């Protein structure tokens, strides 16, 4: 039963990836990534239901608060100051990136079957979902031109890495995890500030304008 719930949550995580790949409005994408973070926050609670410790609660609570509310809040604030709220002219079109997403899912499942993994994790959706999320995050970072989309891609990438870490979360010490969470938080914080500055300087979030050096 627990395994099935975890599977449903992981399916939602991958659906959020696909949603970001296929939809241009940035606000909807931020919401999708926020939901993805919250869904990931639920997984430690579901996985270790036999022995909930303060540790599990800390991770879950930290992840939901940070990824579900704090980071999206900052991104929304940055978005409010931008004139355009849609991703426009990505290097790879939305439909094509959706198809690529489907291919990446298949690739992730195939790869996860080949990886030497601990016995408990083998056969669960956790590793394929994590790999797919990492790869789709990279795809978003590479193909989108808006700085905001690239931040979202970075967040997806990080969510994927975190999902991968969750497979080992019982062994991973709290300190490392909080370290990772803080890193991401600081990273997104800096990027939100940078987006603001790009915005003020160039009047747009388009990263293509950042290719030439000025004196």
């Amino acid at each position: 039963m627990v395994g099935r719930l975890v599977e449903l949550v992981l399916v939602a995580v991958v659906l959020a990836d696909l949603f970001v790949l296929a939809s241009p409005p940035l606000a909807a994408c931020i919401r999708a990534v926020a939901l993805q973070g919250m869904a990931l926050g639920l997984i430690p609670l579901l996985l270790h239901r036999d022995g909930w410790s303060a540790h599990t609660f800390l991770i879950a609570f930290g992840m939901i608060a940070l990824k579900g509310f704090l980071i999206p809040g900052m991104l929304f604030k940055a978005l409010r100051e931008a004139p355009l709220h849609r991703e426009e002219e990505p290097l790879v079109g939305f439909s094509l990136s959706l198809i690529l997403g489907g291919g990446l899912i298949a690739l992730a499942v195939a790869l996860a079957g080949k990886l030497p993994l601990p016995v408990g994790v083998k056969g669960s959706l956790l590793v394929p979902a994590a790999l797919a999320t990492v790869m789709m995050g990279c795809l978003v970072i590479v193909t989108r031109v808006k700085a905001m989309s690239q931040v979202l891609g970075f967040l997806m990438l990080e969510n994927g890495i975190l999902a991968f870490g969750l497979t080992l979360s019982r062994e991973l010490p709290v300190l490392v995890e909080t370290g990772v969470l803080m890193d991401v938080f600081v990273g997104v914080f800096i990027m939100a500030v940078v987006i603001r500055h790009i915005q003020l300087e160039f009047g747009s979030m388009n990263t293509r304008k950042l290719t030439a050096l000025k004196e």
Partner: protein
Amino acid sequence: MRTSWVNLLAAAVAAPMLPGLIAKTKAAVAGRQGPPVLQLYYDLIKLLRKGAVYSRTTTVFFSAGPVVSMAAILAAALFVPLAGTASVLSFDGDIILFAYLFGLARFFTVTAALDTGSSFEGMGAAREATFALFAELALFVNLVGLAKATGTFSLSGLSGRAAESLGLASPGALVLTCLSFFVVALAENCRVPVDDPNTHLELTMVHEVMVLDHSGPDLAFILYGAALKLTLTLSILAHLLFPMDLGSPVKESAFFLSVLAALSIAVGLVESSMARLRLLRVPRLLMAACVLAVFAVALQW
């Protein structure tokens, strides 16, 4: 599983009620009273009593369109399991015949539309054919996933066992398949977000514009065929969602009918809550359905 002609006849008679239920739901959400649920029956009777008008530019393809498409949908009905009973006809691989009977119905509707020589109908025909291309792909990927899960290639075995075998092995795959199939069903039946059955603006119509020139009994055949197609796709979806083996035929029929009604209300709610997508967005929606189906297949590996 039992086979029964009775269920098939009952479904054929009850089919026009589902569009009525959808219309009623939409009216209720919009705060109107709406037409009665049985409205389509009155329309059909009225149309059958009228004569048909044929333009002098049309040929035999035009008059064959409605007849062949309704006949193809009736033939497809033979392969669909209804209320927990096995379909009247079934053999290994009938999923392909089923899909292409729908394809045949669509082909003849499109041909009839092109036969009128009207530019608007040609536009509608082109759109319908384009959307069908994507919807069919998604449908087949779904069928591949279901065949993999259940190990059968007949529609009745496939949808009869899906809820049990796939639900146990991988609930995520079942959810994805049902979502994807729901989108395909909306596209196949020309409902919002793919097509708006209520629009009467030539530039935005897809299915409606193709049947503009049909009148009298021909239009009745088209309307009835559409209602039956809706019933068939929703009943397959109902079988995917819930195992229908409840023991007694009465219980099964009651449960099945309530699931069908719930699905029609769901379609009505979807139509009330969103507008039709822009034409260029529709292929993306159908590609998304296809990717969901691919995901469901990948989950079973």
